């Protein structure tokens, strides 16, 4: 895996982890906040949950688009 791919992976992992942690901590410490219905009569628990699933897909696509692949025959740089 190229150093660029590894760094990109770590950055996107951190972004998603923050979103996931936000969801988990809101549920754990402010569960009542998830009952509010900010949009279309649907509560935060569902909106945030769906948001996390769609965000996972969006970030996965972004990662796939931005990743570099080594050209055939070239040495693969190991960043780890």
């Amino acid at each position, binding site marked *: *895996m190229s150093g660029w791919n590894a760094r990109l992976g770590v950055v996107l992992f951190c972004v998603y982890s923050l979103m996931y942690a936000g969801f988990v901590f809101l549920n754990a410490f402010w569960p009542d906040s998830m009952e509010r219905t900010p949009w279309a009569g649907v509560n935060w628990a569902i909106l945030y949950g769906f948001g996390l699933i769609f965000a*996972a897909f969006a970030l996965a696509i972004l990662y796939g688009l931005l990743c570099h692949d080594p050209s055939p025959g070239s040495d693969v740089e190991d960043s780890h």
Partner: protein
Amino acid sequence: MIYEPSWLAIGVFTLFVGFTLGLSFYLGRNAKSSAGYFAAHGQIPWFVNGIAFAGDYLSAASFLGICGMIAFYGYDGFLYSIGYLAGWIVALFVIAEPMKRFGKFTFADALDARFHSRGIKLVAGISTLVVSLFYLIPQMVGAGVLIQPLLGFPHWVGVVLVGATVIVIVVTAGMVSTTYVQFLKGSLLVFFAAILAWIILARGFEAKLGGNDGYAFKVMGPATSVEACGVELLPADGGWEKIPFVRSRDADGRIVVWHVETNSAGEVTLRESQTVTQTVSGVFVNGQPLGRKPGEAQLHPVGYISRLPGDVQSTGGLGPLSFFSTLQQSEVVLWEKAKEKVAEADGGFTTIYYPKLTPGSRVLRPGEHPTFQGIRSEKIFDKLNFLSLMLALFCGTASLPHILIRYYTVKDERSARRSTIVGIASIGCFYVLTLYLGLGAMTSGALDVTNSNMAAPLLAKGLSEWLFAIISAIAFTTVLGTVSGLILASSGAVTHDLLMNVLGWKLTDHEQVRVAKLTSVVVGAVAIVLGILFEKMNVSYLVGWAFSVAASANLPSLVMVLFWQGVTRQGVIAAVAVGMTTSLAWILLSAESYTQVYGLSAANAWVPFSQPGIITIPLGFLTLVAVSLLTGRNISPAVVDGT
């Protein structure tokens, strides 16, 4: 409920299983070598591998367990969906490409790539076996659950049938056939889940007084007291004293059990409940012998909406968002099991299931299922239990051996990455649908109060016999796909890691495949026994355990080996051993094991909360760092560089 075998379902089921086995025998021609048997020669196309990821991952827990939990408790089951999917982010961004680069056949290959240590092979092999067995139990339980309504056989027959079929699949063609079975299952599962969700939305909601058999449960009151509700009460003798249930006799002489509900104004309402009484002379349902003949009874199906917004009778078709907003303003009748069984004078015991009117807003909020009720508690340990479970789900996916070995079946790192993206898309799509399926089942009037795992197939049965036949067959294939992957991961760990690398067996390529096939038969047999023993446990709950052990034992070493040059072989061995043993010990000493496995009081549990991840995952990382720092100076630079 008494389940009747459906000939249509049996026909579709036989077709699916026959096709799956035929595919296995056909593909078996390409799996004569160990590279073919364990890793399909690394020639699986990335798109097929991506869908096979879904087929491998979307297990009985996802399909039966999550739908069942949502159907009985509401939103909480969806928390599993969110956690399971989030785990794929770790797999894609951190694990996928290095796994493909370092490994060959097993998870231990990647962990041991820099060290060539028998100790690492040993602990990683054992960890693979432990995690796979934990994961196998719910799959086998799910198989038994499916077979009951499908073929009318008892639970154990379903478990044996799945075990035998999977053993044939794995023994005939290894990873090639397993991959295509998983591809088939993943595609069909997502497609038909979407069809089911579409039908649920098109049907909308309807207000009812009972389930699909047309029986309307009676309600008496509200009144100022139980006596004023207008039923002639039987004496509260034996175990019927001091419980919120009373009994009366109806015009036919049948005993009716009522749940006593008192509102904030002190008014009493009696709601007709359902009972199952086990006595030495047999099983009685609602006071009558279990059966279909006149004078006999079976449990009524449940799960319905009692009031819709605007007090309309039905809503007609709903959109993806108006489905939730309508339910949010409705009133749902959920059924609960009374905490304690009632001891009868003749030595028998009665289990009571009672209706509970629940506002839709409560159904759609977290914290109603016993596993998640802790988030509404003031106790910090209850909150830690929730955080711990969500952490284990996040970290567990990328640590599951049967998922990790899928990275060896594609040709390069780019294919590994692309297949993970396809996996995330298909798995994410399915998990969005689980909320519709679960809530659809909750309001379908088809639920069996005694078995949450049957919610999805019974939902399909309530819609159409054809759909039930197809969904049941797919669910059965779901179990086949996941169990195949687990058995393959286990047989690889035994053959490749433990026998060849640890015990030093010198096996030819042909012998490796033969030993792996023998191992598959043994692991399959163990899985069958465990599946029968754990029949009554919710499959999602059991999978939560597997994730905790996998995340605690495997993830710390896997991540640190990839990202820190200071890791030593002693550090890896210690981290896997400590993570595995502490998480297992924690689970076995937890309140949930005490109540659900040993039948003891939760108060006697040794650990303060049930989910180990929040303690044992960091402990795995700390152990690895501490032992690596202590032993690092003995390691030559050549070993550290992996050269």
